[in-house]
């Protein structure tokens, strides 16, 4: 009855890299596709998935109506999360992290497309998203999106974050190096350092999806 608030414990990266090399082609339980074996950060769980970007239209915080595939597939790596502006605890934390992440990238920040999509689009009008983005000092590479309820749900489902209502949402960050590459999914409370490290790993191509799309295989670092 009392929900656990303790994140899943992880093993160290070095141990796992060793295991990945030592074990040839790990057998994966299809029912356990989300329990990826390489949580790289304390308290998080990472997994890879071949999510398909749905062809929906969204409205950006600057008011422009855009196609989601166009926004995501401009060649830049993408860091994606889902928020709503009246979220009490999870979103302020996630957005603070992304703000830190952008700051740490410094001059490199323009090369990454950070995208935050609203899961309460009727409340989160473009102007509310703009206010929210200012609160977190969002640089030009970080954009916020809203749209119809239907479009938002379609995108949420495509990335397996839809939980029926916004208060059931969880802490999830998604990253992809380039169009066509698999997505890294990070669940749980990462730090900005964790995000940076995961990002560098994703961009360097140090993850590869298995045929079943459920596992992360780190190639030798």
């Amino acid at each position, binding site marked *: 009855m009392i929900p656990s608030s303790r994140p899943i414990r992880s093993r160290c990266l070095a141990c796992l890299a060793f295991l990945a090399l030592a074990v040839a082609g790990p057998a994966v339980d299809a029912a356990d596709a989300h329990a990826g074996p390489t949580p790289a950060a304390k308290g998080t769980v990472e997994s890879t998935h071949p999510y398909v970007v749905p062809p929906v239209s969204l409205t950006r915080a600057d008011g422009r109506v855009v196609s989601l595939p166009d926004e995501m597939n401009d060649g830049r790596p993408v860091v994606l999360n889902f928020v709503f502006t*009246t979220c*009490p605890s*999870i979103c302020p*934390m996630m957005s603070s992290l992304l703000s830190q992440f952008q700051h740490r990238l410094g001059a490199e920040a323009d090369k990454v497309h950070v995208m935050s999509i609203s899961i309460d689009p*009727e409340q989160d009008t473009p102007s509310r998203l703009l206010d929210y983005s200012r609160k977190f*000092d969002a640089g030009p590479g970080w954009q916020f999106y809203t749209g119809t309820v239907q479009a938002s749900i379609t995108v949420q489902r495509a990335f397996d974050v839809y939980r029926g209502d*916004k208060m059931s949402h969880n802490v999830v960050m998604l990253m992809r190096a380039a169009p066509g590459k698999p997505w890294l999914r990070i669940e749980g*409370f990462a730090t*900005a350092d964790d995000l940076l490290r995961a990002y560098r790993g994703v961009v360097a191509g140090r993850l590869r999806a298995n045929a079943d799309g459920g596992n992360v295989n780190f190639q030798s670092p």
Partner: protein
Amino acid sequence: MKVVRLVLAGGLLAGASLPAGHASALGVAGRSEGGAGQSIYLQGVLGSGAPLAATREDGLVTTGTDAACVNCHQHSGLGSVEGRVSIPPVTGDYLFHSRANGAGEPVLAYAEGVRGNRDPYDDATLARAIREGLDSQGRPLNYLMPRFALDEKDMAALIAYLKSLSVRRVPGVTETVLHFATIVTPDSDPVKRRGVLDVLDAFVAQKNRAPLKPSPAMLTSGRTQYAKSMYMANRRWRLHVWELTGPASTWRAQLEKKLAAEPVYAVLSGLGGSNWAPVHEFCEQNAIPCLFPNVEVPVVADRDFYSLYFSKGVLLEAQLIARTILGADGRTAAGAVEQVYRAGDSGERAAQALAAQLRAHGMEVRDTVLPAGAPGRGVQAAVRRSARGEKGSGRALVLWLRPADVAALGDVPEGTDVYLSGLMGGLENSPLPAAWRERSVMTYPFDRPDRRGIRLDYPLVFFRYHRIPVVAEQVQTDTYLACSLVADVLNHVADNFVRPYLIEQLQGMLERRIITGYYPRLSLAANQRFASKGGYLVHFRDPGGTALVSQGDWIVP
């Protein structure tokens, strides 16, 4: 490690007023002034006036309102659950309650985020938790909980405030009865008034028909701390109808008197005319939930807490029209806009709102005002007067009129786009003359009739069964919806009748509801007061009848 400083709305919030009765709403005897502890908890302001600073494990700092405890622990202090993240209650009751068996101790009502597996705090360990992030047994708190550097005075004030959030008795709640009030203003429509009160009476009567019996005690091993706390009594509802009289300037005093004589737990539904502000302020200042009154002109104040509305009514309609006239990208359309409304009616407020939006984009807006009373008289002349302005393309005429005035419309002016308030004019039953139908677009802040049928079955059957004349279907189904929402949320509230908790639980559970009456979707969250956020633009399909065609999709302005 570099600290990223996010200095947010620091310092005192301009214009925010704390409800004087906030503490009394929670059942603490006597009115407290709130004081330093309340300022820290609700606003993130220290005793010195400086902003509160919240520091997280990774060095991230937030300040001011965004650092305030209320954001996570809520107004009630009872916390919440968000996904897999649970935020515990921090009222004195929960913090200082001893582990387990509860011999001689007050039984705590169930709260979702409760932490059962720790020793009770005392003042010293609580201060340590807030400063250093360790629980009563020295274990680290959840990653989300920041550290706060408070001096002795501020810490003592905050801890005192947390203790004050503990509840012994909530006004309007007894062992067997829940007292509700419903408020009717003298400028409200008498036909709707009858309809609303009929629905409320029938709902309460049906609720009370279930036999009153004590809840069975939870059959558990008794080892869990809250084994005895799931006490959900099926209390009777008692409805107090507060009918206000005279000018609006006297309503507040009348309400205060009624509240003193008949303390209530919450204000449910009700009916207003064009001015609901005195009632909204009464609820806010007395910290009483005011749940879904039937008003066309609500008070729009996102930072208030105690009032919840189904929609922004005619103000939403004004937004829909503004958006259409201006175009979605806000570029100014050519031409002027004329409006017609009756003085003192809801249309006056709507016209003001629309004019403000259009003028902000450089458009010219002219109003023709009909005198109050004498419905149907003078409308044709008013329309002709309004048409005497510049001719040319791009003129728009906006009619904020009731059915009697709509029926009295004469000739359609040339070269004009016509917009009508659906809410005021009777929706699909609007008596809009045939000649006007081809040229008029009506705002429709509800779901389309062809889509909402199934969702209305339940209330309509309820009306038939209780022989309630359906004189104002939309208002009556909204009333029924408000009642059933409150009945629903009382299950979630369990035995925790702290008034802010009622609001918080409503905000949390609303989106999951399937039965939403006239509205396609209802959704709320913290700092949201309006559950339905959009509408359609429609026009009549035929010269007569009620068939409508929507122009495009649901619009959220």
